[in-house]
C-alpha cells in the first residue's frame, strides 16, 4: 500500500517537471540554430539578359511553365523567346520560338544581316502602368522591386492586361485571375535563383 502511495507521489511531481524540462530544452536547442527572417528592405532585384549569348534553347521558358503551373497551351506565357531576323533589304522578321516546333523557313544566309534571340518577360517596371490601373490593388510592387499579383484579391477586370505595354500579362484559365512573371518571388525570398535562370548561362 505505501509503495503505491510513494509511487503516485513521485509521479505527480515527475510528469509536469519532465514536461517543463523538455520544452525548456527544445527552446534552448532552437536558439542554437537561428532562422534569419527575410527582410525585403535589404534587397533590390534586377535581371540582366545578354542577348548575344542567348542560343534560343527555350529551356528558360519551359522551366518557368513547369515551376509556376502555367498552362501548357500556347496562349499563356509568363516568359517566351523571340527570334529576330534582319535581312539585307532592312526587313525585320520576328517569330515566337516558344510556341513549339516550327517549320523552318528556308532563309538564304547571304540575305541575313543579323539574327538574335530575345527572351521576353515582365520587366518589373519601376513605374508600372499595371499597378497604377488595378482597381483593387491586387497587383503591387514589393519593396525589393518585384511586381506581383495577389490572386486572392484580383477581380479579373483585365485592365492591367490592357495597360501592359509588353504583353507580359494573361488571364490564368484556372484561377481566373491576372497572372504574369513574378520574378519567382517564392524562390528569391529563400535565396534561390528564379526558375528561368539561363541553363546555357546566357
Amino acid at each position, binding site marked *: 500500500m505505501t509503495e503505491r502511495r510513494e509511487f503516485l507521489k513521485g509521479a505527480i511531481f515527475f510528469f509536469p517537471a519532465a514536461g517543463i524540462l523538455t520544452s525548456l530544452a527544445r527552446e534552448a536547442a532552437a536558439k542554437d540554430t537561428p532562422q534569419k527572417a527575410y527582410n525585403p528592405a535589404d534587397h533590390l532585384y534586377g535581371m540582366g539578359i545578354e542577348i548575344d549569348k542567348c542560343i534560343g534553347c527555350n529551356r528558360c521558358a519551359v522551366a518557368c511553365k513547369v515551376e509556376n503551373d502555367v*498552362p501548357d*497551351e*500556347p*496562349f*499563356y*506565357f509568363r516568359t*517566351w523567346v*523571340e527570334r529576330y531576323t534582319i535581312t539585307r533589304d532592312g526587313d525585320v*522578321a*520576328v*517569330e*515566337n520560338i*516558344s*510556341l513549339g516546333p516550327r517549320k523552318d523557313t528556308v532563309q538564304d544566309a547571304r540575305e541575313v544581316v543579323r539574327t538574335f534571340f530575345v527572351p*521576353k518577360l515582365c520587366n518589373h517596371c519601376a513605374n508600372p*502602368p499595371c499597378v*497604377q*490601373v*488595378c*482597381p*483593387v*490593388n491586387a497587383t503591387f510592387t514589393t519593396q525589393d522591386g518585384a511586381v506581383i499579383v495577389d490572386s486572392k*484579391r*484580383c*477581380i*479579373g*477586370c*483585365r*485592365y492591367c*492586361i*490592357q*495597360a*501592359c*505595354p*509588353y*504583353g*507580359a*500579362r*494573361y*488571364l490564368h*484559365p*484556372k484561377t*481566373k*485571375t491576372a497572372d504574369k512573371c513574378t520574378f519567382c518571388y517564392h524562390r528569391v525570398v529563400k535565396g534561390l535563383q528564379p526558375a528561368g535562370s539561363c541553363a546555357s548561362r546566357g
Partner: protein
Amino acid sequence: MTPHATDGLGELLEQVTGFIFPNEIEIHWSLLIVVYPYVTGLVAGAFILASLVKVFAIKEVQPTYRLSLLTALAFLLVAPLPLLLHLSQPQRFYEILLTPNPSSAMAMFGFVYAWYLMGVLLLEIWFEYRRDLVVLARSARVPLNWIYRVLSLFSKDITAEALAFDRKAIQVITIIGIPSAFLLHGYVGFIFGSVKANPWWGSVLMPIVFLMSAIVSGIAMVIFLYMVLTALRREPIDMACLDKITSYLFYAVIVDFSLEALDFIHRLYQSEESVKILGKLITHKLFLSLFVIQILLGMFIPLGILVLAKARGFNEDLRKLLYFTAVILIQLGIFATRWNVVIGGQLFSKSFRGLMAYKMEIMGIEGLVAALVLLALPFVILAVLIRLLPTKRLEESATS
C-alpha cells in the same frame, strides 16, 4: 478552362497575321465591354437633353423632359451589369468599392457612378415627380397607393411654396448634373484614353470624342422613344418639339464628326511609330465597321437626311419618316463607334507587327445573346417606369 474555350483560341492563332506577343491572342475586353460605353453614353446624352429644358429654358423641348430623365435612369440601372458579367471573379466585385486603388480610373468610376445615380439622377427625378407622387398616393388604388407613398418618401406638402422649392432644387441639381453627366461618360473615355500602352486608345481626345458621340446617341434615343411612345399612345406628336430636338441632334452630329475627323487627321499627320499598323488595322480589320457603318451609315447619311429635312420644307409625315430613319442609323453608327474603339484596340499587337482576330461567342456569359438581353433590358425597365411615373404632368393631362 473548358476545352471548348481553348479550341477557340487555337482557331484564332490561325487567323493571326504577322507577329503578335503570345498572350495577346485572347481578346480580353469583348462584346460586353462594347455594350457598356454605349449604354452609359445614352445616359449622358439623355440627361443633357433634359437639362436643355431646365437650365437653358428651351421650352419647345419640354414634352420630352420627363421621358429623358426616365430614359437616363433605365439605362443607368443596366450600365453596371455588363461590367459585372465580364469580371472573371464577379463575386469579388465589392472590393472595388471597399478597398479601391485611388490611382485607378476604373476604381474611381464606381464612385462617379454612385454619385451620379444618387446625387443627381434620382434626386432630380424625385423633385420633378414629387407633386404627382403625392397626388397619386391619394388617388391610386391599393397597393399602388402604398408604392406611391413610399416613392414620395411620405411627403405630403404640395403648397405653392413647396412646389417653388421643388423647381429651385431641380434647377440646382441640373446645374450640378451637367458636369456630372460629362464626368460619367467622359470617365469611360478616360479609362481608354489614359492607356499609354495602346496607341489606338491612348489619346487626349478620347474622353471628348466619347462624350460627344454619347450626346449624339442619347438625343437620338430620346427622339426614337418619343416617336414610338406617341405612336403607341395614338397621340399627335408635337412637331415643334421634334424639329427643335432634331436640330440639336444635327449640331451634336456636326461637332462629333469634326472631333473624330480631327482625331484622324491628327494621328495621320503626327505619324507616330504605330501609324503603319493602325492603318493596316482600319483597312484590313475594321473596314466594314468603321468606314461603312460608323462613318457612312452612322454619320454621313443621317447628316444628309437631317440637312434635307431642314432645308426642304417637307410635310410632317415625310419629316417624321426621315427623322426616324436618321436616329436608327445613328444608333447603329454609335454602337459601331464603340465596337471600333474597344475591339479595334485589341486587334493589333503591341509589338506593332501583327493583327489578331476576335471571334464573338453566341451563347455564353459574354456572347451575343447576353449582349442583346442587356440592350433590351433598359427598354423593359423604361416601360415599367413609364407605367409608374407618368411622362406628362398630372395637371397637364387633366386639362388636355
